[in-house]
């Protein structure tokens, strides 16, 4: 008799549990708009030697063609969210490279050797990107990969220093502003997949709906739209961490 009662209770419990599962609400729909914030870093080598008419590549002469360390941030506004998402944003970064200046003397034994003074190329890349993110894989199928592409208008203030101050040659100051355009293609990995509960808690506590890491390839054409002059174009990878809220 006791066994029959226990079986009945078990059956009732199972039925109750099934009922609870059926009452679980579906995931909330993706909001039509939002923001993304990204922190990124990478290394780049400006294609200074691409300028027509140069007798040598000064970047190679001074910096031995070694990479500049780049770091930056980007904020994007998600203007449309349907089959994927379209965003417009603003990005700012910083990159620098230091090396010894080289001596210019009449003595062939010292000419071209390293000076005790340091010279630096410093750039502040700014960009206004418009992007498309194919996040359907994640929103519909829970596949945590989001490929994306961006096109951007670039504006890069730059400065060359020697001995800590802006280098001046023939009364021309080594500082200016370069304009250009760029394209970016990348892939983001949605970290929410690693811990759905933690992701939900973060959404509740901070409003951050997604956290992701990404890798992207940048094709930057920074030569004042083809004008002959200092060419700060570069092709480089960046990596970073992003938040969508």
């Amino acid at each position, binding site marked *: 008799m006791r066994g029959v009662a226990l079986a009945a209770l078990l059956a009732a419990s199972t039925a109750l549990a099934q009922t609870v599962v059926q009452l679980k609400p579906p995931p909330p729909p993706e909001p039509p708009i939002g923001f993304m914030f990204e922190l990124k870093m990478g290394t780049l080598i400006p294609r*200074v030697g691409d*300028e027509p008419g140069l007798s040598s590549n000064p970047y190679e002469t001074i910096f031995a063609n070694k990479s500049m360390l780049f770091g930056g941030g980007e904020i994007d506004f998600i203007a449309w969210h349907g089959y994927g998402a379209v965003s417009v944003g603003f990005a700012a970064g910083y990159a620098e490279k230091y090396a010894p200046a080289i*001596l210019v003397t009449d003595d062939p034994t010292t000419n071209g050797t390293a000076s005790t003074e340091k010279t630096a190329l410093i750039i502040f890349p700014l960009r206004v990107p418009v992007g498309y993110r194919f996040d359907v894989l994640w929103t519909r199928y829970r596949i945590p990969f989001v490929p994306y592409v961006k096109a951007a208008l670039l504006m890069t203030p730059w400065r060359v220093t020697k001995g800590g101050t802006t*280098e001046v040659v023939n009364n021309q100051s080594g500082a*200016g502003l370069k304009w250009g355009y760029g394209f970016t293609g990348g892939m983001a990995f949605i970290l929410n997949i690693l811990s759905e509960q933690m992701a939900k808690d973060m959404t509740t506590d901070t409003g951050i709906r997604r956290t992701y890491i990404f890798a992207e390839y940048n094709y930057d054409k920074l030569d004042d739209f083809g004008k002959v002059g200092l060419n700060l174009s570069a092709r480089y990878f960046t990596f970073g961490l992003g938040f969508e809220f």
Partner: protein
Amino acid sequence: MPTPLRAGLVLLALASPALAQQISLNFGSGGANLTTFPFNQEDCNSNVSYTVAWTATGLGSGNACSNMQIFVTNSQSCPSAPTVTSTDGGTADVIIGTVDINTLATGSGSVQPRRLRDMPGLGGSCPDGEDVTNAICASLPYRATGSTDCNGTPLGSSTTLNLRYDAKPPVPPVMTLLGQDAKIVVQLDPQGETLLRYEIQYAEAPSNDAGPIWKPPSPLTLEATKSSFQITGLTNAVEYLVRAQSIDEVSNPSGYNDPQSATPQASNGFWGEYKDAGGHELGGCSVADAAVPTVFGALGVLVALARRRR
């Protein structure tokens, strides 16, 4: 009342009066935060004087046994009481002020100004090359809390003041020169003593037996908190001599070190190398002025969209 709480209250009651009885000294107005009063031979010879102010807390006729004595001792630390007669060939302490019990109860006061040269380590003279430090102390026989007699150790000052006679020149700095483009970088390393500044002079290396003509006539100065100085506006490929001296905190000069030579040399940074390679860039804000409003327009759209979202 629980036993630990009672014990704590007893300890607090015992400790409070002990903490409350205190004497402190300072150099009075203009030097209240100083604990050391340094002076040089010139101050000594000029009969410059100093003033000591005192404050007393928790002291009066109830626990002070006699007058408080403020004295200068020929040492860097304070004895419990002044030595009036000299021992071991040393110099007797100089009592610079006596505060009676009634005045002590008022809590603060100052003693008459005294000449610096009268500190016991100097004995009224201002010798060359000496570096002498004496301490200014206080001593008050008193009845400590819980005691009924005055036989305990006298109460001294909670702060020790020092008078420092410094007629000893500092050591010249160790110097390193770097010849750079139209300039020489002078790196200076102090040797031991606290310094006020460095003084630097330079000259073109003479081509004959005539001595160098040092310039500028008033030496260049560098605060001792810094260690590097640039002499600019020099001619490349010309050899220069540079010398420097240390000035200590009482303005004693060390005398200049042995001159060293360096030759400024022209160099190219990235911009110079770029221009030498035939670079066309002129610098400054160049073409594509139309892009400026584009960027700011895009930023404006971004801000407007963000506001609309709220």
